[in-house]
């Protein structure tokens, strides 16, 4: 008997059909990944397996069988026994997925007691046991902590511990590492791998990241618009995809091991446009003071791209904001064109991370793009409109989009508007702060390509701040690696990526998921070695 057997599954929310006739099976102990971009319906499938749509107004059709339970027909009581008992779910955001008011050990014990008739004390002991199992140090003491006292990675471990508590046959992991840094992601994926080997439970992994899937599963099901595009063993689907969509998807995924396609060869001595000298920035005062950026010096040349890569909390965003003048440094200076500079100036622009908050929802996108023109003193409405239309077309939008509002655009389109607004100031440098991290891979590739084109055409200098090592390699001439406010390594991109000198850089690179399952296995053992160093 299969662990999971789904036939002709459809899920409809009102008139929207999120899942459309999906069928798949998962054998005992096997691992399957549902891979797709946002809106593909993959998370909906995960919820449907536990019957979480019951009573929510969503219409679920087809048949779902999980661990011998007919999810569609089972009475509420049987469904409750299935949830957590035989099939347990790990959610994406570990902070919001735990009750902020109770100790983590108590929350695991509560779940355990739903499924087993044991005393409070025994349940609490079980909680400590599973916390220890997922690698939480000093589990007994830490089990009394509340979720906000844990780091992101520890919280995800705690959620996995909760899932393990009742020894389920199936683990459903919905984007379990999306909110985590790449090194922590690697640890969590390794943990899942080890647990699967030890317990023999089946795994259904939902992810947008092809690399994460390659690291973790035997089989892949690629989804799009609620349907299965391609389904097969992970090596076959990722190695030689048969469907055009899968090929496009894989083609768009940036590779950390591939050199930059169009590396520029420069002849003349490069001209320095922006320079950071001994930049330092502190936040808070007294005991709570901490240094976000510490003694950072950088030079940015005309027409080149400098990649700044680091994990969360490395200070890369603070550095970016100081470079454009939105934040004043505590010490050190930013020099533009050889002169020290205070405050913002139009020649140094920024493209922001969040396509939702970077445009004023109450103003038309044309007005937002026109801002730099008007601020410069241009008052001829005709000329302003003309220039804005030109810019919108240049970034791949339509001139007629002038009067539309931000909510009418997709994330990728909004990011294009943001680029057009930066261009309107006729900048020489654009600092891009995580410009593509909120976008799907195919959109990501398009925006990255657009930035490259504009750079060549206009001779712009780009500072590309990102956490994604592969994207940074794809766009950068030179790369700076940041950790805890300092630059640990800086150099030409290929050199840093192929021959990293700093141990932290090596650790980062080893943590990046590989698309090839065999390489992934090699990396895993390499990580173990690095960890034992």
């Amino acid at each position, binding site marked *: 008997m299969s662990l999971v057997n789904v036939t002709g599954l459809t899920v409809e929310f009102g008139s929207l059909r999120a899942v459309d006739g999906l069928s798949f099976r998962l054998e005992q102990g096997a691992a399957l990944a549902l891979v797709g971009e946002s809106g593909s319906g993959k998370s909906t499938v995960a919820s449907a397996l536990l019957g979480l749509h019951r009573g929510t107004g969503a219409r679920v059709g087809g048949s779902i069988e999980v661990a011998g339970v007919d999810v569609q027909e089972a009475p509420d009581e049987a469904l409750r026994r299935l949830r957590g008992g035989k099939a347990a779910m790990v959610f994406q955001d570990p902070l919001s997925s735990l009750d902020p008011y109770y100790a983590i050990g108590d929350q695991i014990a509560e779940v355990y007691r739903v499924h087993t008739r044991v005393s409070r004390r025994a349940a609490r002991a079980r909680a400590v046991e599973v916390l220890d199992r997922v690698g939480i140090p000093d589990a007994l003491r830490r089990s009394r902590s509340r979720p906000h006292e844990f780091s992101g990675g520890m919280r995800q471990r705690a959620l996995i511990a909760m899932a393990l508590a009742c020894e389920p046959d199936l683990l459903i992991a919905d984007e379990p590492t999306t909110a985590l840094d790449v090194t922590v992601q690697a640890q969590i994926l390794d943990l899942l791998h080890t647990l699967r080997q030890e317990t023999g439970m089946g795994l259904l992994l939902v992810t947008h990241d092809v690399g994460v899937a390659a690291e973790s599963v035997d089989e892949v099901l690629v989804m799009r618009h609620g349907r299965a595009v391609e389904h097969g063993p992970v090596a076959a689907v990722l190695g030689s995809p048969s469907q055009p969509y899968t090929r496009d998807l894989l083609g768009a995924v940036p590779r950390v091991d591939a050199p930059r396609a169009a590396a520029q060869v420069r002849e003349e001595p490069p001209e320095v446009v922006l320079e950071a000298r001994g930049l330092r920035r502190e936040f808070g005062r007294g005991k709570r003071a901490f240094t976000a950026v510490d003694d950072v010096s950088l030079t940015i040349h005309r027409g080149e791209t400098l990649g700044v890569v680091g994990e969360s909390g490395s200070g890369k965003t603070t550095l970016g904001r100081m470079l454009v003048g*939105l934040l004043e440094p505590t010490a050190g200076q930013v020099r533009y064109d050889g002169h020290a500079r205070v405050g913002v100036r139009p020649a140094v622009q920024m493209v922001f991370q969040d396509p939702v*908050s970077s445009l004023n929802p*109450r103003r038309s996108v044309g007005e937002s793009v026109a801002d730099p023109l008007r601020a410069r003193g241009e008052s001829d409405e005709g000329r302003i409109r003309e220039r804005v239309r030109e810019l919108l077309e240049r970034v791949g939008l339509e001139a007629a989009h002038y009067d539309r509002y931000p909510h*009418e655009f997709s994330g990728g389109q909004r990011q294009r508007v943001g680029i057009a607004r930066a261009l309107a*100031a006729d900048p020489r440098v654009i600092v891009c702060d995580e410009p593509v991290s909120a976008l799907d891979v195919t959109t990501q590739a398009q925006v990255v390509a657009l930035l490259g084109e504009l750079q060549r055409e206009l001779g712009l200098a780009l500072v590309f701040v990102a956490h994604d090592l592969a994207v940074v390699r794809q766009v950068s001439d030179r790369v700076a690696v940041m950790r805890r406010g300092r630059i640990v390594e800086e150099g030409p991109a290929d050199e840093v990526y192929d021959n990293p000198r700093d141990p932290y850089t090596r650790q980062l690179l080893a943590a990046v998921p590989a698309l090839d399952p065999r390489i992934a296995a090699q990396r895993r053992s390499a990580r173990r070695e690095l960890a034992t160093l």
Partner: protein
Amino acid sequence: MSAPGASGARQFWRRLRTQRAALVAAVVVALLVLVALAAPLLTAIEGQDPTTYHPSLVDSARGGVPIGSFGGVSAEHWLGVEPQTGRDLFARLVYGARVSLGVALAATVVQVVIGVVVGVAAALGNQWVDQLLSRITDVIVAMPLMIMSLALLAIVPSSFPRPVLVALVIGLIAWGNIAKIVRAQTLTLKELDYVSAARLSGWGSWRVARRELLPGIAAPVITYAALLVPTNITVEAALSFLGVGVKPPTPSWGQMLTAADVWYQAAPQYLLLPAGALFVTVLALTVLGDGVRTALDPRAASRLRVGTGRKREAKA
């Protein structure tokens, strides 16, 4: 998802229109405002005014009980007359609506103006300005409105026009919460990328504040103001009930209730009319306020009730 092309205001109306209770409340409020505005006209039609004594209509032998059934209801006096004085109840009621609504609205305007100015200044000013204004706001919030206004109203000479005074006192004491909300919202907005982008465009900080920040704080301010109006009506009525708010001969609903418990058997409408008027007005305004809140921000609807800056974001 919102419909394409819908601007903020249009979206607001569309969302408000889908709430039946809020619509009914809006109609009631509109009627009340109309009655208040048309008070002289309405009393002219009745042929009465709110201040003339009619000693002939009350039975002085029985302590001033209105003569006639139902407290002296007649063609001349639609809702009867006041015990003891014989003043026309209908006239006092509609003129009372003027006082209630007028005082409450004026007080709200004062609260909103002070609150917005202080809140925005605290959020945009430097650390010292913020510290100072926030401490002042804390003190203001800690002052019990009823007690302070009760005491303040006692010392101002009675030559000062009373309704204006009541509105001013309420407005000057109870702006703390709105300042806190505005400060919190402005601080949130200030960190948004589009505000940074506007600064990068080269605009000065005044222009950025006006174009990018102020529209963003409008929604919470309107929402909170809509809930302040009914509160202010209640406070004015309470002060007048205690005899320190609006004083005779100016009519006010709260003041009419002062002596009502003595007369409830002889002239029940003397109690029921102002009590009912207060109830209906406050209820309609509250329902309308809820509707406005839901229409402006369906998600934050439940959050704003306690939006006094106490709820802090969890920091990991």
